[in-house]
């Protein structure tokens, strides 16, 4: 992957433990690249879960994982 300044980096991988998600959207607010959204997918508890909708923009900064109060998101680089 190449970022906006032409720097090459490995595409990060985000893993969502969706059963822990309550759809609060704090990760969406925390993401500086605006690549997360609360999706239409519901987990077993009935909450719409967070997901990465624009993986190309994700730079793996992990602010979403840092912000998530329910430890839903893991970021692999």
């Amino acid at each position, binding site marked *: 992957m190449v970022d906006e300044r032409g720097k090459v980096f490995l595409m990060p991988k985000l893993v969502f433990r969706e059963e822990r998600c309550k759809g609060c959207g704090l990760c969406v607010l925390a993401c500086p690249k605006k690549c997360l959204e609360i999706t239409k997918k519901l987990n077993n508890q*009935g909450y719409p879960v967070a997901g990465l909708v624009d993986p190309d923009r994700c730079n793996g900064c992990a602010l979403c994982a840092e912000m998530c109060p329910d430890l839903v998101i893991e970021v692999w680089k």
Partner: protein
Amino acid sequence: MSSPKMELVNGNEAIARGAIAAGCKFYFGYPITPQNEIPEYLSKHLPEVGGTFIQAESEIASVNMLLGAGATGARAMTSSSSPGISLKQEGISYLAGSEIPGVIVNMSRSGPGLGGISPSQGDYFQATRGGGHGDYRTLVLAPFSVQENYDLTALAFDLADKYRNPVVILADALLGQMKEPIILRPVTPQSFDKSWALTGAKGRPPQFLKSLYLNEGDLTRHNWKLFQKYQQMKAEIRFETDLTDDARMVVVAFGSVARIIKTSIRMAREEGMQVGLFRPITLFPYPEEALFRLSQKVDHFFVVELNTGQMVEDVKLSVDKGARVDFYGRPPGSIPTPDDLLEEIRKVY
């Protein structure tokens, strides 16, 4: 002096931990979002303190188990969310009629019917007007933070024993799901005379607890006795006032929305609006006298609820006749932000 130890706790877990701290030994429940962390926590930790956790076959079974455990004098709790609490109303009426203590937690969600799992305050009438059949009331506590979830749950057990009456914790999905650092204060449960409890009649004559009164005059006397008890409960009235000393308008809100609007009030103050907050913590008995006294000083009230207008009736009944009462209601489906509510304050101020 070292600062007290704080722990990051989920709102539902705080309820469960408050119950254990208050000496709750029995929990009966049936799963429903958004309160599942209460049974989840208690299923693991109640047995560790010698307690019993039962996931019953239904909400109705669990509230009747609460009645049975309460009748033996034990401290017991059940929890659910709005549709489940509707199912429990029959048992709550029997608890009130038989004067058996018990704690019922309503992490309310939206209705009517199955509604949704988002926060709502649509159960205000149900909680404060009795809820089931008959002329009874439950004592209703409304926390607005994870800390209060813990503190008020612990308090609920003392109040239930003191008045031999069901006590309802009315919170909502927001208060159940959020996480905050709280102080898990040690609780000293008060002890009360429980000579009425059914403990096996060893060394005493047999006794029973009932809510059926067929002899002429008995039920009248029983209802008046309950009425007297509900009057005495006024000793437990709790409320919070914030920035009301110089206020020209007072916002009246409880629970989660009070939490949100507290921020809006700070923002309004920065814009020079003299706004304060009156937050009832006991919803029954309602802090009507305190609100009346306040209305002799301030003549403008603004009631904000996550429903289309329930507590506003109690505010109108409480305040001085000359006071103006405005209302903003947000039905379930979206949670207002502090900015949204600031805008509503601007409109009425």
